[in-house]
C-alpha cells in the first residue's frame, strides 16, 4: 500500500510567549520551538502502522520552507520511507494553497491513501484534507478515530459532535483527515533518527509540479485577541489562594 502523509511544521504555542512581529503580519518565531503538528503525528503513526500490517511505502510531504524539513526528518525517523518538500516560503495565509500544491504532487502517483491531520494548530483551518479530496476527486473523510483497511477498501469511524460517532465505508484511494487518539505517536528511536539521516529529502518547486504559489486570501494583520471576561486573578500566598478558591466553590455550592 502506498501512503502519503501531509505534515505541517508548526510552532508550539501552548505555554509559550507568542509575540506579534514588528510587521504586524506574522509572529516572532525566534524563541518558539517548532514541531510536526499534533494531528499530523497521529497521521504518520497511522500510516506507519498500516505499512507494518499490510506492507507498502510511506511518503511524508510538507509544503514549507527549509526549516520544515525537520518535521519530515521526524516522519522518517518514525518509519516513513521517503520525504518530499514542496518549496514555499512562510506558511501561506490562504487555506486553499497547501491542498492545491499537494494535489499537484499526488496526482498520478498512485497513492492508495492520503492522510492529513484534522487541523494544523497554527492557523487551524481544518480544510486541507477535504480540499485535497475535492482536487483529486477522491472520497474523503475527516475526524477519523478508527480505521480498518482491506483490499482496496476501508471502514472507518468518524467522530461527530457530543460523543456521537458514525461508521463509514469507502473504496481506496481516499483522503483521510486523522483525529488525535487514532494512534498514539511513537517516540523516535536513536536508530530511527540515524536511518532517517540517510534518506534524502526530495525538494520540488511548485513550478516543477506545473503549479504556482498564488494566494487569493490576504492576511491584513495580526493583533492580540480581544479582551474576554473580566477575570479576577487571585493573589497571595498559596495558603491564601487555596482558602479563597475553597470559598469561591462553597459560595455557590455549599
Amino acid at each position, binding site marked *: 500500500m502506498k501512503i502519503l502523509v501531509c505534515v505541517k511544521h508548526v510552532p508550539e*504555542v*501552548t505555554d509559550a510567549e507568542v509575540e506579534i512581529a514588528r510587521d504586524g503580519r506574522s509572529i516572532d518565531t525566534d524563541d518558539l520551538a517548532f514541531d510536526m503538528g499534533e494531528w499530523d503525528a497521529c497521521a504518520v503513526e497511522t500510516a506507519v502502522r498500516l505499512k507494518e500490517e499490510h506492507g507498502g511505502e510511506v511518503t511524508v510531504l510538507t509544503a514549507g520552507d527549509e526549516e520544515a524539513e525537520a518535521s519530515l526528518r521526524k516522519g522518517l525517523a518514525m518509519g516513513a520511507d521517503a520525504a518530499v518538500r514542496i518549496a514555499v516560503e512562510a506558511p501561506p495565509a490562504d487555506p486553499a494553497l497547501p491542498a492545491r500544491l499537494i494535489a499537484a504532487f499526488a496526482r498520478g502517483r498512485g497513492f492508495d491513501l492520503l492522510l492529513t491531520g484534522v487541523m494544523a494548530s497554527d492557523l487551524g483551518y481544518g480544510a486541507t484534507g477535504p480540499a485535497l479530496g475535492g482536487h483529486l476527486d477522491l472520497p474523503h473523510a475527516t475526524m477519523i478515530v478508527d480505521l480498518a483497511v482491506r483490499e482496496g477498501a476501508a*471502514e472507518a469511524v468518524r467522530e461527530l459532535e457530543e460523543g456521537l460517532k458514525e461508521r463509514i465505508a469507502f473504496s481506496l484511494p481516499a483522503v483521510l483527515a486523522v483525529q488525535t487518539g487514532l494512534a*498514539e505517536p511513537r517516540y523516535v528511536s536513536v536508530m530511527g533518527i540515524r536511518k532517517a539521516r540517510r534518506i534524502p529529502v526530495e525538494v520540488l518547486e511548485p513550478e516543477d509540479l506545473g503549479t504556482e504559489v498564488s494566494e*487569493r486570501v490576504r492576511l491584513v494583520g*495580526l493583533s492580540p485577541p480581544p479582551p474576554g471576561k473580566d477575570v479576577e486573578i487571585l493573589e497571595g500566598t498559596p495558603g491564601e489562594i487555596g482558602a479563597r478558591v475553597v470559598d469561591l466553590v462553597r459560595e455557590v455550592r455549599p
Partner: protein
Amino acid sequence: MTRVLVLAEHRRRELREVTLEMIRAAEAFPGAESTVVVPGAAAAPLAEALAPFAARVLLLDHPLLDAYSPPEYAAALRQVVEREDPEVVLLPHSYRGMDLAGRLAAVLHRPFVTDAVGIRPGDGGLEIDRQVYGGRVHCRLVLPPGEPVVLSVRPTTFPAAEPRGSPGAVEAFRPEGLPEAPAVRFLEYVEEAAGEVDITQAEVIVAAGRGIGEEENLALVRELADALGGVLACSRPIVDRGWLPRSRQVGTSGRAVRPKVYVAVGISGAFQHVAGMAGAGRVIAINRDPNAPIFKVADYGVVGDLFRVVPAIVEAARSRGS
C-alpha cells in the same frame, strides 16, 4: 444586495441549531438575500420548518443526499451554485461544515476561509476575523473583492435567527447525474458508552488538562475534585492518551456540561474545549501561563504552577472541613 446561500445542517431528521445561527450570520451582508439549502429528499419537513426563518428555502430533493457523503454533497451544491450564482456560500464550522467547506471551495474554484468569528463586508473585499495559534492571536484576513466566496463561521458566534414576519417560499431542486451509491457510505451511528459517572449532571467539576504532564499526576486533580465535592473531568488529550474514559471529556467531541463551578487545571482553553463548558456558572482556571486563552472565559484565575496551587487548595478544603 448580496445573494447568500446558507447550507442547513441536520442529523437524525433533526435540524441543528447552527443552521439558525448561519441564517443570522447571513444578515451581516449588506442587503442579504438568503436562500437556505436543505439537502436530502427526506428533509422536506425540515425545509418547511425553516420557512419562517428565511425568505427562501431550497430543498435538494434527492434521496442520495439523505445521508452525508462529501463528493455527492459537493457535486449537488455545485449545481445549486451554478443555478443560483450566490456571492457567498455560508456554512457552519461544525463537524459537518469542517468536512465539507474545503472540498466545496475546491470544486467551485472559489476562495474560502473557515472558522470565521467575525464578518465585515466592505468595498475592499470581505474582511474576516479569525483566532489563530490556539486562540492566542487575532487574525484579520481579506477575501478578494468582487469574487464569490465560500465561508464557514464558528458555531455560537451569532445568535439564532428569529422567525420573520411572513414565512418564506419553499422550493425543490433535484440535482442531476448523482451516482447510484454514495462514495462514502454511512453504515451506522456509534454511541458513546455511558460512563460510570455522568459529568453533565455534576454541580462541581474539576477538569484536568495536558498541563498535568504525566498520568500519575491525575491523582492530584482527583484529590482536588474529592476535596471540593466535585466530579473529575478532563480535556481531550487526557482521553486520547487513555488516562480517562471519553465519558469524562468536556468539549465539542465530548460532553457539554453546565456545573455551578468549573475548575480548569492545566487546560489552555482551546475553543473546542471551551464550547463544552460555556454553560458553567463560575469558572476558576489554574494555569501557569498568564496568556492562556482559558483566562478569557474564566471568572477567577490562579496564575501559577498547578503542582503548588492544587495541593494548597486541597489543604485549605481539608483544614476547613466540609
